[in-house]
């Protein structure tokens, strides 16, 4: 069931908050042993929150809806581990993060904290001190990351929706690999207060759920200006669920052709091209677009990201170095050796990238490209097959994800097909604060396709009777 459908059933009294919570707790109990999407299940708190709602008048768009959040996001009373040994003794958060405050204001119930790549600084979710998350579509495959637990949780229907965080693809990659819908919002759309930072000028919290409509409802609950976070922008928050049915007749869609070449698994390219044909069939005006220098945008982000990330960890690199997982330790150490002029160069390059991308958006409303160019690698492997060639997985990520983080644009990833039983994703990129356009396009696409409603066959494996 979609998050929106569950919210409606709760409002209509067809199911109760307690029934909804118990439904998910039973599924977590039966299925999460093999997936490992949760770091902490907050059973008692969830049951208490549900009981407190019973008999009350439904208020808020997420009234009684059980959700879960990545464990870099503070939930009052629970330690934020960031899946790291470095934080194994961290005290429980004494206050909710801004986004959890938003979820609760909308009536949501927090089910627990979700697995992540250590400190959200990597795209595999295998470095967690809580063990790797496993892909519900193929348990020997990674879930992507860093919000891997958030993606797997939605795919396995262990919460109605989740929040992740995205610095260079960390919502989009697990959305793609787990066959769910996810949004990296416009930078500054959502407060990062109470969230463990990766790189402050790129970090963005984002929703993952079954559908674009689900993500629209979640975004509305957590978006908005926050005087406690200077990165947020004081732009009104619309009702993102309004106007979804308007369709995309006349929408100008630009295909980023340089991201649809030999750098993409041919079978994924085919799925993405078919998805673009679907958009055209819905009335979109499709044309090819090139963003000059796009292939350098990832380098520009890295010029800034390494330093921002390392600075956060300087003290613990001095005192707790051995407690970091080797891959995260190597990334953080690398930041020590990038000269400060490179950061300044990156910041000038960032405005150049912004200007070049803005030029492209004068001709189109939405850009489209594959979310990820390959299938997820197997757990324990750091290479992936790309058209018969084994290449480093981490190098496949940057060209498809960093460009849009760099210039702070919203990206909606929607499932658009399957290759060898594993999901492929279509990235819809909008101009700043164009989330309503992305949701409208994603919703229209999901009205004529069923990729988003396909489910991994987990219940049979677990012996569950649905």
């Amino acid at each position, binding site marked *: 069931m979609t998050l929106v459908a569950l919210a409606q059933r709760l409002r209509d009294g067809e199911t109760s908050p307690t029934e909804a919570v118990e439904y998910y707790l039973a599924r977590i109990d039966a299925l999460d042993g093999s997936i490992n999407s949760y770091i902490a299940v907050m059973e008692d708190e969830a049951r208490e929150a549900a009981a407190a709602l019973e008999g009350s008048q439904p208020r808020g768009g997420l009234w009684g809806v059980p959700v879960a959040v990545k464990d870099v996001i503070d939930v009052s009373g629970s330690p934020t581990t960031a899946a790291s040994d470095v934080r194994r003794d961290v005290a429980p958060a004494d206050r909710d993060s801004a986004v959890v405050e938003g979820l609760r204001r909308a009536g949501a119930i927090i089910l627990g904290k979700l697995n992540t790549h250590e400190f959200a600084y990597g795209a595999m979710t295998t470095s967690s001190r809580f063990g790797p998350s496993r892909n519900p579509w193929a348990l020997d495959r990674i879930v992507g990351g860093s919000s891997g637990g958030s993606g797997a949780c939605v795919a396995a229907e262990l919460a109605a929706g989740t929040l992740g965080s995205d610095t260079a693809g960390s919502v989009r990659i697990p959305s793609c690999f787990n066959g769910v819908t996810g949004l990296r919002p416009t930078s*500054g759309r959502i407060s990062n207060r109470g969230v463990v930072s990766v790189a402050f*000028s790129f970090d963005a919290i984002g929703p993952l759920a079954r559908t674009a409509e689900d993500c629209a409802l979640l975004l509305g609950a957590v978006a908005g200006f926050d*005087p406690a976070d*200077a*990165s947020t922008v*004081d732009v009104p928050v619309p009702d993102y669920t309004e106007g979804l049915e308007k369709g995309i007749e006349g929408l100008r869609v630009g295909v980023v052709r340089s991201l649809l070449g030999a750098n993409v698994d041919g079978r994924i390219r085919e799925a993405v091209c078919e998805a673009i044909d679907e958009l055209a069939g819905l009335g979109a005006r499709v044309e090819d677009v090139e963003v000059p*220098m796009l292939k*350098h945008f990832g*380098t*520009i982000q*890295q*010029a800034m990201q*390494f330093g921002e990330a390392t600075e956060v960890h*300087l003290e613990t*690199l*001095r005192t707790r*170095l051995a407690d970091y997982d*080797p*891959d995260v*330790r*190597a*990334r953080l*150490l*690398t930041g*020590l*050796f*990038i*000269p400060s*002029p*490179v950061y*300044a*160069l*990156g*910041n*000038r*390059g*960032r*405005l*150049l990238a*912004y200007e070049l991308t803005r030029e492209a958006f004068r001709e189109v409303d939405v850009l489209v490209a594959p979310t990820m160019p390959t299938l997820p690698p197997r757990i324990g492997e750091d290479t992936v097959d790309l058209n018969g060639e084994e290449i480093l997985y981490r*190098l496949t990520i940057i060209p498809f994800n960093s460009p849009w983080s760099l210039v702070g644009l919203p990206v909606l990833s929607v499932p658009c097909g399957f290759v060898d039983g594993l999901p492929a994703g279509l990235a819809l990129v909008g101009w700043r604060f164009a989330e309503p356009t992305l949701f409208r396009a994603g919703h229209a696409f999901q009205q004529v396709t069923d990729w988003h409603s396909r489910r991994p066959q987990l219940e049979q494996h677990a012996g569950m009777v649905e």
Partner: protein
Amino acid sequence: MAHELPSIDQLRDAAAAQGIHPSDDDLEAVQGFLRVLVPAFAELEQLVPLDMRPAAMFLPTEAP
């Protein structure tokens, strides 16, 4: 940015100067990253025009 890849000894000394003491294995992994990054940054230096302004960073907007 210099185009040469720093040696393990140079990396170790630079880390120690910042109070951090990685192992040789760590520093070899760092070299793996730098092997890709150093030439990419050098190329970027040639691509960003000197008169290009920096992107804005955010500052609070509250009254004094």
